């Protein structure tokens, strides 16, 4: 049994799942950038006391699960999200949903994700995919990272749904409870809510390791890495920074390009010239993140080794922090004028 579902490839898994699923459930206007912006997806955080694969824990986007949750809430779409202690129940409930002709999304770990190339299979547990059908023992999967539909046996799907470790999905299943169209007016309001929340997260979040101050904090850390960690470990740390920045498919811009696209699409609902010019500022920020990644790669390939190279890398991040700060400040002013 296969549900009539339009698979579309996205730059990022959670945006992609949110957009494809909502479109299927009746929200015709939704796109990946709109889901990302309404869900206030843009972020930066450096968790100083946490390690990921022995390296720094850095994220360029909001916490896993928030984009779907916030977007649905803003658009007044009731959702179901459920974790399971029993693997059998987790499968039965998914099957029941599919038998009713409705797709459902799962949070999964990528380590055992059979269709992923081996190079990408780390113990990362916050990947998202949509199950759109079942034929014999095989589930048909719409994974936004993949170009086409893929499939997994029931054993393979169970394994990724019950991956263990940090952010263990515990069989997590989620979907909109009902088909519901939304009005342009609702999208308009959701855009305002999304922007306001993103301004707050980037400019005013307390502490010094998240938002704009998190970028500055990271910049200062990088300048010290060479002395405090030594050359080899600093290389690994910088490679990790770039891997987090790129995640999968952000075009190297740490999600900044997707946010730029969001602001342009927001213009269709709030025709204010400011949105277009602020969008250009985010494009600029994304480009500078790419330049910083190139500088980092010079270091981790061993071509750049002096303290001066690390200082340059840190200064690039400080410059980006200023760019993003200015962009969000303008956005804070613009959002107040939105009706």
């Amino acid at each position, binding site marked *: 049994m296969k549900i009539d579902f339009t698979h579309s*490839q*996205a*730059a990022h898994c959670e945006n992609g799942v949110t957009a494809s699923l909502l479109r299927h459930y009746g929200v015709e206007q939704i796109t990946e*950038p709109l889901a990302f912006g309404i869900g206030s997806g843009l972020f930066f955080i450096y968790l100083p006391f946490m390690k990921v*694969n*022995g390296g720094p824990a850095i994220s360029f986007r909001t916490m896993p699960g928030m984009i779907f949750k916030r977007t649905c809430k803003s658009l007044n779409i009731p959702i179901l999200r459920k974790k399971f202690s029993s693997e059998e129940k987790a499968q039965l409930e998914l099957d029941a949903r599919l038998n009713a002709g409705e797709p459902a999304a799962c949070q999964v770990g990528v*380590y055992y994700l059979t269709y992923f*190339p*081996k*190079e*990408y299979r*780390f*113990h990362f547990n916050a990947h998202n995919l949509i199950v759109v059908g079942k034929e014999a023992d095989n589930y048909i999967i719409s994974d936004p*990272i993949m*170009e086409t539909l893929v499939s997994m046996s029931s054993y393979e799907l169970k394994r990724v749904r019950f991956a*263990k*470790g*940090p952010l*263990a999905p515990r069989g997590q299943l989620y979907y909109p409870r009902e088909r519901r169209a939304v009005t342009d007016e609702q999208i308009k309001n959701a855009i305002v809510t999304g922007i306001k929340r993103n301004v707050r997260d980037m400019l005013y979040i307390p502490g010094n390791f998240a938002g704009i101050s998190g970028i500055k904090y990271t910049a200062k850390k990088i300048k010290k890495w060479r002395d405090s960690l030594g050359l080899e470990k600093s*290389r*690994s740390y910088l*490679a*990790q920074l*770039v*891997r987090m920045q*790129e995640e*999968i*498919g*952000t*075009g*190297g*811009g740490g999600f900044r*390009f*997707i946010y*730029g*696209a969001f602001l*342009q*699409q927001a213009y269709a609902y709030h025709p204010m010239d400011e949105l277009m010019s602020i*969008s*250009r500022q985010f*494009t600029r920020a*994304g*480009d500078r993140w*790419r330049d910083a*990644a*190139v500088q*980092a*790669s010079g270091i*981790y*390939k061993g071509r750049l080794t002096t303290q001066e190279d690390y200082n340059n890398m840190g200064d690039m991040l400080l410059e980006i922090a200023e760019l993003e700060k200015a962009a969000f400040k303008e956005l804070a002013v613009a959002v107040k004028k939105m009706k």
Partner: protein
Amino acid sequence: MKKEDIPQDKGALGNEVSYVVDENGRYTTGISKGWDVKIEALDVAWSDIEKKVYAAKQKVLNDEASPVLYFMELKIMDLPIVAAYTGFWQWQIRRHLKPSVFNTLSEKKIQKYAELFEITPDELRQAKQILSNR
């Protein structure tokens, strides 16, 4: 990033969607085959893993660690992950990393590790011999 600047270096993942601006400054999507900067970052991560696996192998061969350490590194796991999958406490696993304790492990415990590491219990028990022949 402009559409014509999308990197097309050959990556492991194949075609990826990127958001880029066209000649009129409008956002659109384009396909990237991969980006060297990112591919190399991933290479660094894998070469770090290989080094850890190699170090673990030497420790096993020198009787400084049990085969559990070697397979844990091979599967990119750490104590919390192994504990989550096997149900053992982290302090138990830390003990199992000692060859003297490993050699006295029950069939049941060996079975659990073998399952997690996707090998047979015999392959786990005889890992030292197998590794020394490689």
